Every structure is written in structure tokens, then in C-alpha cells.
């Protein structure tokens, strides 16, 4: 698979009316995703804290919820940055804002990809641990 890292074309694409319309709608809904996700993770963390206060045995749940909320915040603040900057760039025809917005989109997918790699690593370790423990118990 060739990956030249940079598109090479004599005829660059432009941002025409159709492209702008798609990007504007995508950015608007990305904003909804980001805000709703931030609210959800915040509420979940708050509920976990309240549960932890009333039942001290649930400390691990609070910690897990806190980590999850932190990761969600990192991801969704980046997504919010893409949404806001892209919409601003499109509305004010500001090339810098627009480029920064698309850069935030790149960062969003990169963060998501890295988190996925970490999650996969944990899953593989868990499966290996399960297989080893099953093998040991049979022995």
C-alpha cells in the first residue's frame, strides 16, 4: 500500500459550495456530539462520585469513571475545536481558522486511533491472561 504522506496532484481540489455545505453541517453536528458527550461524561462522573460518597466501597468505580470522563473531555474538546474553528472559518472566510479547524479534526481522529491501540493492547493482554489462567487451572 503506497502512502506518500502528501497528495501529489497537479490539479488540487477546491472548497466549492457543495464541499462547504457538507463541512458546515458536519461541523455543526460534531459540535452537538462534543457538547452532548461532555455533558454525559460529566453527569456519569457526578453520579459515580455521589454513589461513592454514599457507598465507600465503590471507590474503584469513581476512579474508573473519572478516567473515562478525562479521556472523553480530551476527545470532545478537540472535536469542539474542529467544530467551532471550521464554522468560524467558513462564515468569515478566514483561511487560518479553517485550516486550524481541519487540523483539529486530524487531531481528533489521531487521539481516537491512539486510544483504540491502547484499548486493543489491554484486550490482548486480558485474553492472554485468561488463556494462561485457564491453562494453569487445567494443569
Amino acid at each position, binding site marked *: 500500500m503506497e502512502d506518500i504522506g502528501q497528495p501529489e496532484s497537479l490539479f488540487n*481540489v477546491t472548497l466549492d459550495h457543495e464541499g462547504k455545505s*457538507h463541512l458546515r453541517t458536519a461541523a455543526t453536528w460534531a459540535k452537538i456530539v462534543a457538547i452532548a458527550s461532555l455533558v454525559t461524561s460529566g453527569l*456519569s462522573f457526578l453520579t459515580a462520585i455521589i454513589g461513592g460518597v454514599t457507598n465507600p466501597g465503590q471507590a474503584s468505580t469513581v476512579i474508573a469513571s473519572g478516567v473515562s470522563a478525562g479521556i472523553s473531555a480530551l476527545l470532545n474538546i478537540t472535536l469542539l475545536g474542529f467544530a467551532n474553528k471550521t464554522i468560524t472559518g467558513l462564515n468569515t472566510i478566514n483561511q487560518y481558522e479553517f*485550516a486550524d479547524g481541519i487540523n483539529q479534526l*486530524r487531531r481528533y481522529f489521531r487521539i481516537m*486511533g491512539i486510544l*483504540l491501540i491502547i484499548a486493543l493492547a489491554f484486550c490482548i493482554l486480558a485474553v492472554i491472561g485468561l488463556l494462561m489462567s485457564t491453562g494453569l487451572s487445567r494443569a
Partner: protein
Amino acid sequence: MDQQESHSDIFQDLEVDASVQHSFWEASRWSRFIAITYAIASGLAVVALLFAGKAILEGFVRAGNMEELAGATGILGGFLIVMLLIVLGITATLIVLLLRFANQTRSGLQHGQQATFNNGLKSLKVYFIIYGSLTLVGTLFVLLAAVVSMFALSR
């Protein structure tokens, strides 16, 4: 010279310059990785559930009165299968849209094809519309759960 500068200002518009191209290129690369990984993980999850689902249902039947639970097991199993199919359908749709964004944006940039590039942006748009709708529904459920738990704690 001044007239030329003011003339160019009138027609100034957003460009897919080198910086934006690079960002789209990298975004398409990572989103393709995410889509393929989710596709493989979903496939594995379906296979695991197909085997584990049968074991869970058999456990239900063995746990209590078999005659009473047999009917409930059938209804529960049917409900679970329907839910699973809905979740799978939504997941598959999101994966396909993300993959289309990745491939079409990359192809459009690489070959200078405006229509392909625009189709990639359209796929990104639809992806965020579906994702946004699901997120709103999820947020509603979490809000309801939070209200119910607050109410339960206050009593």
C-alpha cells in the same frame, strides 16, 4: 496594482491549501484505521456472542424451573437478537461512512477529483449526523438515570 489587489480580495475564498490537504490526508489515514479496527472488533464480538449467547440461555434454563423459563428464554433470546441486530446495523453504518470518508477524501486529494473529495465530505457529514443523533439519545438516557438516582438517594 491596487485595482488588481482589490480585485483579488473580492474573489478571495477558502482554499484546500497544503496545510489543509495534509490535515485531511492524516485524518483519512487515522479514520480508515479506526473503521477497520472497529469492523474487526465488531465481527469478533458477534462471533463471541453467538457462542456465549447460547451458553447464557442454557444457563437460564438450567438455573430454575425449566418449563417456566423455557418460554421466557425464547422471548428474552428473541429480544436480545433484535437488539443485537439493531446495534450491529448502526455500527456497520458508521463504519462504512467513516471508511468512505477516509477513502474518498484521500482519493480526491491524490487524483485531484473534486466530486470524489466532496463525496468524502458528505460521508463525514452523514457520519456526524448519525453519531450526533445517537449521542443525544444516550445523553437523554443518562439524564433520566441521573434524575432517578438523585430521587432515590433523596428518599
